[in-house]
């Protein structure tokens, strides 16, 4: 420690700070806003006006609030599923691909069985969407459990493959014959689209699914044995193995669950605000959901709140583009910055700042204490005991 920060030093807390766990996302959001202030200044815009246009104006009316919920829904759905895996150290970063496959599978049901006004078609579409997402997530689960292949790389590669497959379908087999050669499927009928939740907006009942899933996810992780097993696997892999908890089962469960929610998000988008299959069905919700999961502390309630914040970033980007001719790419910039600040702020969950240089001898620090194996949490992800201390070797 002595080689590092001299004036302010980091000191490991005896146990992770519960206050900081909640405060760190708020700190991160505040730091993101401060960065936004600087970015707006650098772009030569009045920060006050930019803030108003970015963060207030989009949600200043009923339609705007509807849009906020609309965009938060797929983010929350994906993030709820991802959080289950992240808690158990299973890194599904391909929710975008599972979302796309969910959209494809669900649309396929409508396109092959319809057009119809029958009521049974919508549940079938949703089911197919969920199964499509699960099937796509089953590939990395199988490869990881059978061949030890990194789920990080496989899920990501499958995103590109899913998007190309979608492109193939809308340019070929599933293109609307009456669609003037536009690469898109026929529009879904009213029975093939989700009912609206709020009149005068575009929010569908998918928002209700998200809230229900949040409750279910809380129940799963807090009240079920399967949820407990996954938590142990994330916090202390060695303990989980010793207790005989199957790692394979955790991997399958984590990937299938996150695939299912991403698939549901996908079909809810095409059978909702989009209304047909198009070459692009998501502006990166599956990737943004990774940020949502972390900012939401991998906790269902936190994820709901974080999804609203991320949704506001999307709306703000659009609004700033239209009103102030700011590039909409500023959204992606804010998203990335937010996650960085969160990761940095999370430092204070495990460490506290202390003033002043230490004594010249750092004997104390080198001694091994049981504290070193205290529960550690980084980025909301519990990690196993830190690397061995030099003191421990003797």
């Amino acid at each position: 420690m002595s080689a590092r920060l001299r004036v302010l030093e980091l000191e490991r807390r005896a146990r992770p700070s519960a206050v900081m766990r909640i405060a760190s996302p708020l700190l991160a959001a505040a730091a993101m806003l401060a960065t936004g202030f600087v970015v707006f200044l650098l772009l030569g815009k009045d920060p006050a006006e930019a803030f108003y246009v970015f963060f207030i104006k989009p949600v200043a009316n009923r339609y705007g609030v509807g849009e906020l919920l609309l965009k938060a829904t797929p983010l929350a759905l994906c993030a709820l599923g991802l959080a289950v895996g992240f808690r158990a150290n299973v890194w599904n970063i391909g929710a975008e691909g599972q979302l796309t496959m969910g959209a494809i599978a669900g649309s396929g049901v409508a396109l092959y069985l319809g057009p119809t006004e029958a009521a049974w078609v919508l549940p079938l579409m949703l089911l197919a969407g969920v199964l499509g997402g699960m099937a796509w997530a089953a590939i990395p689960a199988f490869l990881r459990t059978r061949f030890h292949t990194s789920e990080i790389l496989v899920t990501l590669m499958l995103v590109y493959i899913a998007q190309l497959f979608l492109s193939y379908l809308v340019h070929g087999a599933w293109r609307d014959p009456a669609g003037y050669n536009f690469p898109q499927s026929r529009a879904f009928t009213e029975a093939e689209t989700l009912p609206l939740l709020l009149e005068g907006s575009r929010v569908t009942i998918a928002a209700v699914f998200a809230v229900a899933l949040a409750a279910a996810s809380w129940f799963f992780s807090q009240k079920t044995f399967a949820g407990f097993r996954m938590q142990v696997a994330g916090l202390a892999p060695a303990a989980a193995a010793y207790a005989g908890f199957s790692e394979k089962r955790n991997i399958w469960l984590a990937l299938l669950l996150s695939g299912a929610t991403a698939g549901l998000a996908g079909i809810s988008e095409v059978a909702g605000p989009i209304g047909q299959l198009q070459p692009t069905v998501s502006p990166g919700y599956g990737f943004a959901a990774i940020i949502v999961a972390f900012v939401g502390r991998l906790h269902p309630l936190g994820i709901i709140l974080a999804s609203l914040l991320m949704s506001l970033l999307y709306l703000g980007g659009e609004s700033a583009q239209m009103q102030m001719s700011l590039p909409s790419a500023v959204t992606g910039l804010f998203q990335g910055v937010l996650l960085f600040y969160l990761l940095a702020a999370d430092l204070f969950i495990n460490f506290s700042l202390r003033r002043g240089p230490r004594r010249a001898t750092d004997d104390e620090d080198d001694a091994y204490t049981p504290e070193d194996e205290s529960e550690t949490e980084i980025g909301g992800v519990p990690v196993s005991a830190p690397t061995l201390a030099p003191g421990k070797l003797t």
Partner: protein
Amino acid sequence: MTAEALIPVLQSTVIAATPLIYAALGELVAERAGVLNLGVEGMMLVGAVTAFAVGLGSDSHALAFVSAAVAGMAMALLFAFLTLTLQTNQVATGLALTLFGVGLSAFVGRGYAGTPLPGLKPLEIPVLGDIPVAGMLLFHYDVIVYLSLVLFVAVQCFLTRTRAGLKMRAVGEAPDVAHAIGHPVIRIRYLAVLFGGATAGIAGGYMSTAVTPMWVEGMTAGRGWIALALVVFATWKPVRVLVGAYLFGGVTVMQLYAQGFGISVPSQFLSMLPYAATIVVLVVICRDAKTILLNQPASLGRSFHPDA
């Protein structure tokens, strides 16, 4: 198909492989020091947009590549500060770096989309370049292609022939032991990560100034991730990175030439090939858990606390 028809295919293979070589060699060095940086894609994109902007503004390719390397290093520095100084989770931080790089490059590059840039010209090598077939195959590339081979030799020698390389590998295998005998673990890891950032930046710069001399949002299209897979494929050995990169380069250009050779598969399926090949290759390499266990740097992805 005649031998002449193959020449452009092989040439494009080399060009497609070059960014992979840079990105994967840099990541390999970082991983040998024990740091898993999943932000390669983000660093490449930032390098790509920087090289394009500087190349357009200054008309100098040299300046473009230097700036791309510096931009990649700036990104890597951010990653290193978070993971090495603040001890954040490497996986999460790497993902953040990629997401940030995607956003930042789109933001910076918004004005450049659709603007053409004079591409990097092949070197004109006298005599050798005039040899039939072999001259075309070996001596008609731009300077960055040749430098990629120099880089390979340098990395290979550094890792296996130098004291510094040995120290760095020690840090990757057993940071606590390296620390105990007095090696500056964190500093060495910083340098390794920065090196990875510089090469990723150059890889991105090569994409936007030579492979396709223009700027398109997200133009690296997963090559940063493929580079990460290449390092696993190579079982952390530079020679295999080289072989793997050329294999992948071949798969990538196959889509461009398949139709010309009378293979009629929808273009989307051909475009899937590099991604599908990545998965297949990972399965083949990882199938035997021992291969990974024996070759992977032992401390890969784990934070190191000098005091804890």
